[in-house]
Structures are given as C-alpha cells and as structure tokens.
C-alpha cells in the first residue's frame, strides 16, 4: 500500500487560474503562486517535481459528462516535461431522487495515477445530512481515491443501497458481492455516492487519456525521470513503456540494470521485460545479464536466467562464463542454466567443465548433469566414462 501523503499549503502545485476559452490546445503561462493557500486540497506523491510553467487544454472525448466541457489540462515545466494533469469537475451527485452539485478539481500524475483533489475557494464536500467533511474524512477520501483495487470498481451506482447480505453471502470468504457492510472501508460514511462518483471519475476514461498524452511526450529522458519516482506504480509504468516506445540509450540501460539488482522482484521482472529481444544480441547486454546472474540473489537469478534463455545465440565468452559459474548456482536456477546451455552450441572444453559436476555428492546436481549430458548425445570417451562411473550409460 502506498504511503499516503497529505500536502496542504505547500508549494508543490501552482493551481493555475482557470481558462474559460476552450480551444483544442491552448498554452498559457502558469501563475507562479497559490491562488488561495487555505483552499482544501489533498495530494499523493508527485513524480515530476519541476516548476509548472505552462498549461495546455485538451478537448478529449471522456464520455463521462462531468463538466461543461471535456477539457483535460496538462501542466508542463519550462522544458516541456509534463508534470501533472487536471480536470475541473462540475457534476451532479444524485440519490433518493435528489441531486446535489459537486464542484471539485481532480488531478492525475503523468503516469495516470490519482494525484489529488482541490476544492475551489469556498467549496467544501458535505454528507447526506449536509455536514461538511471533517479533516479525517478528507484524508480518508484521499486514501480511497488513491486505492486502485477496491470493491467500488465492481459495483454499479444502485448497488450502494443493496441490503446487507441479501444474497446470503456473509459467510463466504471467496466470492462475496459488495454490500454496504463490506463497502464501509471504501466509502465516506454519509457520502457513499460522492465517493463512488469521484473514484470512478479518477479511475475512468480520463486516466487512459492522461496516459495517452504522456506517451505522446515519452522519451528516454522522461522515462529516467519517472524511474526516480518514490512510487512503485510509477516505476512499473515507466518500465512498461520502454520496449516499443523509446530507444534503449546507454543511460536507460544503466538505470534498467540498476533496478535488476534490487530485492523488489516485481520491479526486477519489469526491468528485465524492458530489455527488447534485439538488445539481447549485444555482448554488453549479455555480459550485464551474466553479471546479475552471478552477483545477485536467487530470486533475481531465477528471473535473469529466463532472460538469458531468450538470447538466440550467446557469445562464446558468455557461454564459458555461464559454464564456469554453474557451481555457484542452486536449485531451479541451476536446472534452468542447463536448459539454456542445451540450446547453445558448446565446445568440448565446455562439456568437460560441465562433466566435472558428475562427481558432485549432491544427487540433485550430479543427476541433473547426467541428464543434461545424455540429452546432448556426447561421444567423447572420457565423458562417457564419467557418465558410466556415475551410473548413467
């Protein structure tokens, strides 16, 4: 779970004076100070911490009718690096045959992640009894909106009023429909409809539009900036947008291999996936993968050896390096290394080095080596003699 960060009255955002002229793309200089330091706003960590310089308004078809326009604003730095996106929301929240207006500005990080909300001056959120939200409730709302996987995603508006346990599902841990009872942690008490609506606005079509617009600006430099984010979801987003989107520059390569060293194996996986198959033909990339295989822990190794297995042809020096380091590998990594070698053309010297492990007292090792050598149809008499000695003819 992400750490929730509340930012109030700090100079992270410059809330730009709203434009009333809607054009396809309008660039306007941003105001450099807060319009109102006391306005109610809550935010999550932001990936790009550059100073806002300009704002562009995009007319995009959101298909969610949340305001008078379909404008999505992109705030950028002086060097055109996108910093964040926002929308001005004016929409009704209806229940019990009554509708109340909801006026709020919603923010997205450039990776599409929820960034925060701000209420225009004088606006506040209220509950069914017209009580305004407390500070705790705003904080909870900020947390709820930042939660990507929630039961709110799987229900429709009407299900907010479903009677508790109407399907008799209360005692089922595996498949349980949403009920007001188990929805409680995911909504603000007395403002379930507002919460529901905001969550769906945040995680709806706008999110995809934000990502599309960021992809238009994508570059190795921007990817590198996003990879510095403290938020894992941003890192993963960046790693997923290398292959097929940007060139694998030396800086990017260095950063990707840096991430392969970590103990966060989800990041390691994504970093390895970011290396395009064509890069695997390079001696340097093969050497870097081998380095990771030898130096990192088992859970990195098991992922790296799979990547090495994707190489069409390992360079001779890399094959020899792998053969010479077989003894340092354990368990499934060892088995997979043999599978990789089985796909390569090996020299007699390499086979001899591998055959040495037939003498291992560890039955797992010696049996695996014997199975490997047998499958290679070795004809060398010395190796055959070793196999025979091992009980494998």
């Amino acid at each position, binding site marked *: *779970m992400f*750490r929730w960060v509340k930012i109030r009255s700090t100079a992270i955002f410059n809330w730009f004076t709203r434009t009333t002229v809607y054009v396809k793309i309008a660039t306007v200089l941003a105001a450099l100070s807060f319009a109102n330091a006391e306005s109610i706003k809550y935010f999550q960590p932001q990936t790009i911490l550059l100073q806002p310089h300009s704002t562009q308004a995009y007319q995009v078809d959101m298909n969610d009718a949340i305001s008078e326009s379909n404008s999505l604003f992109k705030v950028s730095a002086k060097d055109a690096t996108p910093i964040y996106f926002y929308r001005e929301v004016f929409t009704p929240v209806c229940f019990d045959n009554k509708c109340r207006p909801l006026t709020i500005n919603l923010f997205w990080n450039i990776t599409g992640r929820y960034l925060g909300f701000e209420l225009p001056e004088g606006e506040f959120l209220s509950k069914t009894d017209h009580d305004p939200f407390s500070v705790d409730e705003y904080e909870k709302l900020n947390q709820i909106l930042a*939660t*990507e*996987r*929630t*039961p709110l*995603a*799987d229900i429709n508006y009407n299900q907010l009023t479903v009677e508790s346990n109407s*399907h*008799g*599902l*209360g*005692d*089922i*841990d*595996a*498949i*349980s429909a949403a009920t007001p009872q188990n929805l409680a942690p*995911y909504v603000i008490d007395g403002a379930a409809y507002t919460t529901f609506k905001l969550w769906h606005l945040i995680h709806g079509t706008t999110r995809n539009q934000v990502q599309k617009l960021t992809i238009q600006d994508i570059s190795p430099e921007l990817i590198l900036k996003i990879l510095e984010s403290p938020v*894992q*979801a941003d890192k*993963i987003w960046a790693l997923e947008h290398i292959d097929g989107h940007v060139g694998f520059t030396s800086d990017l390569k260095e950063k990707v291999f840096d991430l392969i060293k970590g103990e*966060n*194996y*989800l990041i390691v996986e994504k970093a390895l996936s970011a290396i395009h198959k064509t890069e695997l033909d390079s001696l340097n990339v093969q050497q870097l993968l081998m380095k990771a295989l030898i130096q990192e*822990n*088992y*859970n990195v190794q*098991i992922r790296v050896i799979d990547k090495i297995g994707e190489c069409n042809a390992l360079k001779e020096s890399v094959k020899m390096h792998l053969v010479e380091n077989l003894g340092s590998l*354990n*368990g*499934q*990594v060892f*088995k997979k290394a043999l599978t990789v070698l089985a796909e390569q053309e090996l020299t007699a010297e390499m086979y001899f080095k591998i055959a040495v492990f037939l003498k291992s*007292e*560890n*039955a*797992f*090792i010696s*049996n*695996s080596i014997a199975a490997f050598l047998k499958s290679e149809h070795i004809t060398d008499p010395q190796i055959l003699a070793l196999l025979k000695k091992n009980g494998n003819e």
Partner: protein
Amino acid sequence: MRKLERRSVLKALGLASVGAMTPAMLNAETLKKPYKVVEKSMETDILVIGGGTAGTIAAIQAGRAGAKTMLIESGSQLGGTTTTGGVTFPGIFHAWGKQIIGGIGWELVTDCVKLNGDELPDFSIPPARHWKHQVSVNGFLYTLLAEEKCIEAGVDIRYYETPTSVEFKQGNWAVQTTGKGITTQITCNQIIDCTGNALIASMAGFDVLRETETQPGSLIFQIGGYDYDALDLTKIPKEYHHVLRQNMIKNQTSSSAENTFVPYGYVYVPGADSTTSESHTKANNDGRSTLLNLIRKLRGFPGCENLKILDLKTETAVRETYRIDGIYKVTQNDYLEGKVFEDAISNSFYPIDLHVEGKGIHQVFLEPDVVASIPLRALIPKKSKNFLVAGRCVSSDRMANSALRVQASAMGMAQAAAAAAVLANKLGVSPHEVPIEEVKKLIRNHGGILPLTT
C-alpha cells in the same frame, strides 16, 4: 472370390494364434505362496513425514541441499491440501506490492501456471480482497510437477506408508512404518513432521495442543447444470443461494488467462480431523454425506432439476487439529504487529481467518505494509532433538494459527525447516543449535525470502 480368400486367411491366422497361445495360457495360472509382509531397513539423513503442501517443499529443499532425503506419504500423491484436498489456489505470496514468499513453493506454482498456459495476476497493486492474489493452479499439473521435482532432487518417495513408532536412539531417530505389504525400519538423523496434525511430534512424546472446538474442514466440489441468474431465487430458500452462487456457471469461464481464483463450492465438515485413519475416514464420510444431501435438495428447486456434480475432491480438507508446543509460540499480537523475530525464517501474509460453523468467518486484516514473520523456534517442539515441524501445526496461538495455516506460509516454513534440518544433520546437532545466520543463508541461496529486517 477375394472375400473368401480373406476369410480363409483370417481363419488360418486365428487358428495359428490359438495354437501359439494355448500352451502359455494353460501354464499362466500358478499357486502363490501366502504373502509374507516384507521387512525392510533403510537409512537416510532427513525423513520428511507427510507429502502435503509443506512436506513436498521440505523434501525438495533437503534433497537439493545435498542431504539424503526420504519422504513418506500415507496417500498416493503429493500436494495434500493443494491437490487431494482441492484447494488449488495457494496463497498468499505477495503483500503490499512486493513478493514476500518465494523459493520452491513459488517455483511450483509458477511452473504450473506456465505449463498450463495461464498468466499470473498483477501483484504490483494490492487487491481489493486478499484472496485475489491467491494463484489458481491446475491441481493435476501440481501433482505431476511436485513428484518430478522430488525425484530430480533425489528424494526417495514412499507412498502408502505411515509411521507406527518413533524413537530417538543414540543421536538418530528409529522410525517404524507400515505400508501395503511392507514394514520399514527407517533410521534417520532429522525428522520433519509435515503431517499437519503434529502426529509424529505427539508419537515422539512432545506436547501438542488442541482447541476444544476446532474449525470445520471443507469438502470441495463443483456443481453445474443451472444458470444462477436465470433462477427464481424467491422460490429457493436463502440458505442455498450462496451454494448456487459460488458455482455460478458464468464465473467458471474466465474472461482472460489471468489465473487468480476459480469459483468453487464447499460444504463445511464440523470437527474434521485428518490425524488418524479413523478420524480422517469420519471427516470424509461426513463431508460426502452432507454433499449428497445437498445435491438431492438442490435438484428439487425450480431451475436446478438438471443440476450436476462436476467435480469432487478426494478428501475433506482440514483447517485445524493439533499444534506443537514449540520453543516459541507465535501470538495473534505478534502476527498482527508484523513482529520480526531474530530467528525469523519466513514471512506470512493472510488475515486472521477463523471459520466458525454457523457463524461465518472471523477475520482481522493486517494493516498496510505489515507482514508477519515466522521464527524458527516455532517449528521446534520444546525439549526435542533433531526434530522440526512445518505447516499448520506450527507453534502458535489459535488466532495466529488461523492465518499461519495457509499454503504459502506453510511452504515458506517448510523450506526453512528443511534448511535447518540439513545443516543440523551436517553439523551433528539439533536444529535449534544451528547458527541462525547459516540457516538464513541456505534459505536465501535456494530462493526463500527472509523477513526484511533480518
């Protein structure tokens, strides 16, 4: 003409066959001497007893680490709860966007997913409901892969055997087992009790604990032949809605290859206990008769006339029986606070999850970023020598146990128990005497993920 020729040939061939076979067939029947139970004597470094969720992993780890390893299993296949019991969605290996349990258990799960052409869920985002990060596996494949990995690791698997006595003599264990037409005297240096019921610990004379009332077991099945959404639920008593809904046909076809959870049905089996043949038979009998009555009842409801049973697991899966009285007992507070012990050898992530027949499930969820840990001492019975356990009989209070009992946690502790046993055997000491850093190193070298601060 041609037909006649063919017939003649066939006739001739038939006669020739009879002529050729007759003498052999006449001699085929022989009188056998009465079978005499074979008595064998065997030696091993590590003896893993119980080839279930934990035992399979422990045996593979011990074998891969170079120890001579034997695995005895009273049934006919490996995997236990994951296969025979039908809980084919082990978890939980990830918490708060990170992998927290890895090693051999995870290897088996991912190999299953890959070989079945499935995809893993996206573990980077915490799910709305914890079970969405349990990974559905093909139970048949799991059985096959588990056995293959044991054999590759040099593990001597002995199915259909169960211990009848265990005795510690001169630094080794003497374990007498009985199986189909065979009794075996096994001498081993270290025992890992993976029966789930602490049966061997109890037989060895170590204290075990049990609640007056235990959680019900589950007999898992699948039914089909109806469409839940088309049913007139007003004509079906409410208590049956959940059974039908659990088996919704539309949910049984996944919209993507992502393997998270397969809908399943289960009937509770109060007091289910797999400790002995008698108690396990009763658990199976009770579960099956409850299910049969349920099927009969359901078929009487409108829309369910063609209801069919599509799958039924071999055994009632058991949640709670005995726990050892270990050197350390993990408490609910330890668990919920995510206490990291100095000798923590694996993580655990699951809500406190106590099933109470007729009252639902008492659940307490871990707070964000909290992951529980398991100390090696909780796997070692007090006053024991050369003895470890792994699985749900881990030393813990009842509430902690209701979380620790799940498959991924059992796999993590099994790998750790095996690492400790291998080193204890090598050093000629008891597991609690092995330097803990050595145990951790061996676990790490084989893919186990240690709690972060250790």
